[in-house]
């Protein structure tokens, strides 16, 4: 896990170097970090890395959460998941190049067609919240898989609760 995080950080640093050369001079406010570097070089480079990393790839960020869950036959985002959706809205508003697809899913109760409609309503509900939170319509797309692509295949609540879900699927 740790290894993975580090390599992601490195990849992002490299990406940042490659694509943002013209901006290097404007990156001056990182000065406090450089002064800290004098006393503790290792910590300093870690801090520098952290500021450059895409928070979407930070496993400790709230943005690491990519799924919203629902009670049976409900499509409204629940209070517990609202901070997650709002954090993604904020991220999208600051990162206009990023696109996300909302993928609505349902448990297997109800008809397949009703569940397709319910999954679409779930995905569209998240999409609307993202838009209200500052994301642009062009960054967003929504689909429903209804009950057709269950994550858990059991026929009881422990599976169903995992399948009543909207996934935020960022384009690579």
């Amino acid at each position, binding site marked *: 896990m740790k290894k993975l995080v580090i390599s992601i950080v490195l990849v992002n640093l490299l990406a940042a170097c490659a694509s943002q050369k013209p901006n290097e001079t404007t990156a001056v406010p990182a000065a406090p970090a450089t002064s800290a570097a004098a006393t503790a070089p290792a910590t300093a480079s870690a801090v520098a890395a952290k500021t450059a990393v895409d928070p979407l790839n930070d496993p400790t960020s709230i943005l690491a959460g990519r799924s919203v869950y629902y009670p049976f*036959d409900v499509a409204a985002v629940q209070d517990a998941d609202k901070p997650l959706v709002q954090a993604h809205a904020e991220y999208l508003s600051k990162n206009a190049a990023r696109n996300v697809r909302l993928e609505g899913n349902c448990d297997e*109760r*109800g*008809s*397949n*067609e009703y569940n397709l409609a319910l999954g679409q309503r779930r995905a*569209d509900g998240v999409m609307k919240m993202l838009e209200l939170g500052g994301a642009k319509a062009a960054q967003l797309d*929504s*689909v429903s898989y209804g009950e*057709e692509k269950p994550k858990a295949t059991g026929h009881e609540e422990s599976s169903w609760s995992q399948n009543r879900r909207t996934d935020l699927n960022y384009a690579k």
Partner: protein
Amino acid sequence: MQKILFTVLGVLMLLHTSMARAALSIEIIGAGEHQIPVSIVPFGGDEKLGLAINEVVTGDLLRSGLFRLVDPAGKSPHEVAEVHYPDWQVRGTEALAIGTVSTQADGRIVARFRMLDVVKQVELIGQAVSAGDGQIRAVGHRIADLIYEKLTGNKGVFSTRIAYVNRQGKMFSLIVADSDGHNEQIVLKQNEPIMSPSWSPDGSHLAYVSFETGHAAVFVQSLYTHQRKAVANFRGSNSAPAWSPDGKQLAVVMTRDGSSQIYLMRPDGGDIRRISFSGAIDTEPNFSPDGLSLLFTSDRGGSAQVYRMPVAGGAAQRLTFAAGSSYSPRHSPDGKSFVFTHLSGGRFYISVQDFQTGQMEALTEGGWEKKPSFAPNGKLILFASEARGRGILATVSSDGRVKQHMFTQSGDAREPVWGPHL
């Protein structure tokens, strides 16, 4: 309740043909109240063909629940002159089917068959039935239809076809098969979901939902040329296609303007008009036989229930009020009732409701039972069920008396729909 486990062996005789893929076992539960005793003598001539046809005819008649098969027990007349009526009266048979079958030089199978009224000692049917090379089952189904029609007064449905989706892991197949589940043909196979097959009224095309473009889109495909076209592929979901009785319109559910709403279009995707404006989920439209109204599922009242609205647009009327939710309504062929899925207390039931009285009746004991559709004669209802942990096809007679389960070879059978008379 008697329970007969009936394994179709006829398929073993056809292993050299492509029809052999569909090894099904069929389980019949229950029986009609007044079963007509009939004897079917394996046809003479080409005896191997005769036995194969006999297998199909007797299987069809048994599954209907309306007949009791009386064993010919050693007697095998093939011509009227060879029939000694007292032999059959003693056995309690009321109708006797005899005949011969042969293969012509061009490969066509020709069966000449007669059905005799044993009590009145008269001929009820005398007819030749033929089919192309290898289509033994088609000959059997046609003969079973003739017998059924003569003895019950209702048109037989053994020669009709069904469509369903088979899911095996992540692989989905759209399948068309004979009404007994045999003679499977794969219409489409892909590793994205397929849903909601719907027959054109003339049986020449299927409309269905495919996720191959990354989201739900409606396709129409010819069963003859296999040409297919995406007719609704707008943002969000496009689904639940239903044909008008004249075949000139499709009702389709789309989310392109917001929530799932019902639209009409031509089967080529042209001339799109929105006809429902609820802002709720409106889905699963189904045309009345006169083409004037639609049944559909809506949650506009808070839970999913069955509603009816004029095709021309206008106010919808709620039809189901029982506790729980109701889904997937379909008209009976005579337009007097509708069948639907009723979810109550965690169990799905196949239920029917009479339009005039509003009376609702559960036809099944409940379980995992979804997506009912009437046979074109209105006497049987096909639905998706579950047994031994697998999705299977099942039928129930419209009076709820006779049930049968059809097990496909592997995978989960889902989304069945009974096709029209051809």
